[in-house]
C-alpha cells in the first residue's frame, strides 16, 4: 500500500510519521538522534512502519471471534514481545562490543577483572530483560541508549563495587561501545522479528493456543502487505545532511506550522521548544506560515538547558517538573546560558535557596525567553499550540500558561500528547501533497 512519510531530524530525537493517501496517520516512530543521521532517519522510519503494522494488525483482528474484547491485551502482548526481541538483539550487540573494547593496552592489568565484571553485568542484564517488558511496567524511555544505559549504570555500580573495581572504567567501556551499537542497523528484517515476537507471544499466552491459527492468519496476512514508501519529505535542523534531494526537503518552520495546523485546525500561534532551538510561528487559517522567529547562535533557554540541570542535580529529566512544582517562592533567575546553568544552580544553593524554588525559577526563565521569541514573532493569538519536548514538562507548561494569560489574556492552549511529532506530521502532509501533484 502507498505510504507517505515525513521525517523530522531533530538535534536530540528523530521522528517519523506515516500517512496514507487520505492523510490518515498510519504510524509514528521516534528514536534518539545520533552521529549517523542516515541511520537515525532509517530507524525512525522503520519504527513508524512497525507502528503502522500494529495498526494494521488491530484492524485485521477486529472480527476474529476468539479475540473478542481481548485484541488490546493481545496486541499489547505482541508489542511487548517485539520490543523484548529488539532489546535482546541490541543487548547482545552491546555485550560483544563492550568485550571487544576491553583491551590490555587500554586497561592494563585491570582487563581481566573488567571482563569478569562485564560477564556478570551482562548476565544480569539479560536475566532482567523479560521483567522490563512485563505487562504494565513503565519504561522511562524507549531508546536503547537510555534503557540499556540506566540498567548498565545501576547494575554496573553494584557489580563493580562488589569486584572492587572503580566504576568509571566500567562506565567508560559503555560510553565507548554505545555509539557503535546505536549506529549499527539490524541486518534482520523487522517482519522476521515480528514473526519471532508472535511465536514468543503464543508461548506466553497459552490460553490462546486453541485459536492460534485463527489469529496467526490475519497477522501474517498483514506481514505480507508491502508498505511502499511512495513519497518521503525530510525536515528538521539536520535536514541538510539527509540523503534527500531538494524537492524532498522542507524547512522545519513550514513543517511545524502545518503539523500544528493538522493537529489543531484553529491554531494561530505555534511555540516549539526543542533540544537546542526555540521556534515561534504564526500561521493562517490554512496552516501557512505568516511569520516566525527562532533563536540562533545561542541555545540558551532551550530543552537542552533542562537536560544540563537534570545532570547537575542527578535527577531524571522527567523528574524536574514535579520537583519545581513543589516550589513555595520561586527564585528569580536571569541567565539562561545552558552551560552556566549548573554554576547558577550551585550559586543559589550556596546562598541557601531551596532546590525546588531554584528549579521553579529556572523553568520560568526558559519560558520567559520563549515569551520574548513569541513576542518577536508577533505575539500569541487564539488558538495557541505548544509543541516539542519541553511541552511534556508540567512546570514549564504551567509557567507558560500563567505568562500567556498575564500578557495576552484568556487563550486556548493546545498541547498534544503526540506534539513531538508535529514537524514530522507536517513533513508527511507535504509528502502527500507532493505525491499527488
Amino acid at each position, binding site marked *: 500500500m502507498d505510504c507517505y512519510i515525513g521525517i523530522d531530524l531533530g538535534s536530540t530525537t528523530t521522528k517519523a510519521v506515516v500517512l496514507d493517501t487520505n492523510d490518515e496517520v498510519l504510524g509514528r516512530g521516534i528514536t534518539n538522534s545520533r552521529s549517523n543521521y542516515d541511520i537515525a532517519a532509517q530507524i525512525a522510519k522503520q519504527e513508524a512502519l512497525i507502528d503502522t503494522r500494529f495498526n494494521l494488525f488491530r484492524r485485521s483482528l477486529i472480527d476474529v471471534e476468539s479475540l473478542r474484547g481481548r485484541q488490546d491485551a493481545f496486541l499489547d502482548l505482541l508489542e511487548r514481545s517485539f520490543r523484548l526481541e529488539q532489546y535482546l538483539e541490541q543487548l547482545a550487540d552491546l555485550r560483544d562490543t563492550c568485550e571487544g573494547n576491553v583491551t590490555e593496552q587500554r586497561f592494563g592489568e585491570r582487563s581481566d577483572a573488567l571482563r569478569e565484571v562485564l560477564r556478570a553485568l551482562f548476565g544480569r542484564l539479560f536475566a532482567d530483560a523479560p521483567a522490563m517488558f512485563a505487562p504494565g511496567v513503565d519504561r522511562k524511555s524507549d531508546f536503547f541508549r537510555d534503557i540499556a544505559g540506566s540498567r548498565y549504570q545501576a547494575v554496573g555500580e553494584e557489580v563493580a563495587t562488589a569486584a572492587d573495581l572503580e566504576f568509571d572504567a566500567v562506565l567508560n567501556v559503555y560510553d565507548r561501545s554505545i555509539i557503535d551499537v546505536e549506529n549499527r542497523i539490524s541486518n534482520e528484517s523487522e517482519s522476521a522479528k515480528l514473526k519471532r515476537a508472535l511465536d514468543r507471544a503464543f508461548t506466553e499466552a497459552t490460553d490462546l493456543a486453541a485459536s492460534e491459527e485463527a489469529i496467526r492468519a490475519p497477522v501474517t496476512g498483514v506481514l505480507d502487505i508491502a508498505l511502499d514508501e511512495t513519497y518521503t519529505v525530510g525536515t528538521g535542523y539536520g535536514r541538510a545532511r539527509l540523503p534527500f534531494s531538494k524537492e524532498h526537503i522542507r524547512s522545519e518552520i513550514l513543517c511545524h506550522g502545518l503539523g500544528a495546523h493538522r493537529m489543531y485546525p484553529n491554531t494561530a500561534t505555534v511555540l516549539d521548544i526543542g533540544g537546542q532551538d526555540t521556534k515561534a510561528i504564526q500561521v493562517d487559517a490554512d496552516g501557512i506560515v505568516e511569520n516566525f522567529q527562532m533563536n540562533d547562535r545561542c541555545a540558551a533557554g532551550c530543552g537542552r538547558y533542562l537536560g544540563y540541570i537534570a545532570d547537575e542535580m542527578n535527577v531524571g529529566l522527567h523528574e524536574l517538573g514535579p520537583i519545581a512544582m513543589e516550589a513555595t517562592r520561586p527564585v*528569580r533567575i*536571569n*541567565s539562561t546560558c545552558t552551560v552556566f546553568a549548573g*554554576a*547558577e544552580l550551585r550559586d543559589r544553593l550556596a546562598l541557601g535557596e531551596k532546590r525546588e524554588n531554584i528549579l521553579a525559577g529556572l523553568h520560568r526563565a526558559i519560558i520567559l525567553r520563549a515569551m*520574548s521569541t513569541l*513576542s*518577536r514573532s508577533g505575539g500569541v493569538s487564539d488558538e495557541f499550540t505548544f509543541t516539542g519536548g519541553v511541552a511534556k514538562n508540567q512546570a514549564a507548561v504551567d509557567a507558560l500558561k500563567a505568562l500567556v494569560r498575564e*500578557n495576552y489574556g484568556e487563550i486556548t492552549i493546545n498541547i498534544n500528547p503526540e506534539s513531538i511529532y508535529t514537524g514530522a506530521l507536517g513533513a508527511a502532509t507535504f509528502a502527500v501533497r507532493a505525491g499527488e501533484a
Partner: protein
Amino acid sequence: MSITDIVDRCEALFEDLSFAAVREWKAAAPDRKAIGYMPIYVPLEIIHAAGMLPVGILGGGDHLEVIHGDAYYQSYICRIPRSTIELGLTGRLDYLDGMLFPSICDVIRNLSGMWQLLFEDKYVRYFDVPQNFTDAVGGNYYRHELEVLRDDLAGVAGREITDAALNNSIGVYNENRAAVRALYDYRAEKPWQALTSEVYLLLRAGMVLPVEEHTVLIGDYLDAVRAEDRPMRDNCRVVLTGAFCEQPPLGMIRSIEMAGCYVVDDDLMLVNRWLTEEVVGNGDPLSSLSAAFLHHSMETSAKYVPDRATKGRHLVDAVRTSQAEGVVFASPSFCDPALLDRPMLQHVLTGENIPYTAFKYAENSGQMQPIREQAGTFADSIKLWSA
C-alpha cells in the same frame, strides 16, 4: 530620621517599578504634569520652571521581567532600551506626559523614534546637544534648541515659561547640585561612613522626587551619617567609571564594596552632577544654561574632546582629588560610547601609573561571582602591595 529610615525609603522608591511616588505627586493637585528623561543630561530647570516634575527613567533594573522589550531588540544591544520599552508597553510609564531622549548614543537616539511610533499621544523629543563648544557656533545652536524645548514644554504644561521662573529654577537646582557635591565630597573623605550602595540609592531617589525634597533628603542623610560611627573595613579606594547610562544592579555595587573596594567617586547618575559649577541665576537663563553646558559640564564618553591633550584628564583629576588608589571600569555590555572610550582612558591612566581593572555588566546581571573575582583581585593587589 535614621540612616536606615532614609535608605529604606530610597530603596523603596528605587524598587517601585510602578512609580507610585510620581503618581501621587501628580494626583495631589489638578493638571500636574510629569516629563520623563533618559540619561545622561537634560536641562531639568526648564521642566521645573513649567511646574512639571522631571522623572529620570533609567531602565527596569534586575527586578523587571522583560518580555515584550526583547521583541524590539537583538541580543547584541544593551539592556536599558529593552527594559525601558517594557516599562512603557506595560503601562508603567502612562503617567508621563512627555519623554526626552538626550543625545548619548545611537541606541537611545533610535529609541526616540520608536517612542514616537509606540506612544503617539505623548510628547516625545530627541534632545540634541552641541559637540562644538564655542559660544558663537555650538552655543548659538544650543540656545535655539533650548528655546524650542522651552516652547514645547510650555505647550505641554499649558503655561508660559518666563525667564524669571527659569532663573528661579536654576537657583533651586544650584542648591541640589551643591547638596550632591557635598555628599560626594563627604563620601570621598569617609567612604566607610557613606557607603556607595546608600549614596547611589539617595541619588536614585532624586529621579522621582521633587528637587526641593531631594535636596532636603540629602541633607538629612549627611546629618544622620555624621552622627554615627560606622566600622571601617580594610578596603582600597577606587573611582568607578563607565556606568553613566544603563545602571548596574544594586547587587553589583554591593559586591564591589564586599570584595574590598570603597568607591570614592563614580559616574553613576550624572544628571544632577552634570553642571559642575553654579549656573548664573540672574542673567538670560537659556544663555546661562548654554554657557554652563559648554564650559562647565562633566566629561563623559558621549561628549567629544576637541583637544587631544585633555582626553582622559577628567578621570585622572577624579582619582587625584578623591585620593583613589585605582580605577574600576564598569560598563554595560554593548555600550558603545563607554567601551570604545575605555582603551583611551586606560592609556592615560597607565601614563599616570594609576592601576585599573575593567569588567562589564547588564542592569539585570545575576551572577556576581565574576565581578567579585575581578574587583576582589584588584583590591587584593592594591592592599597586599601598598607599602
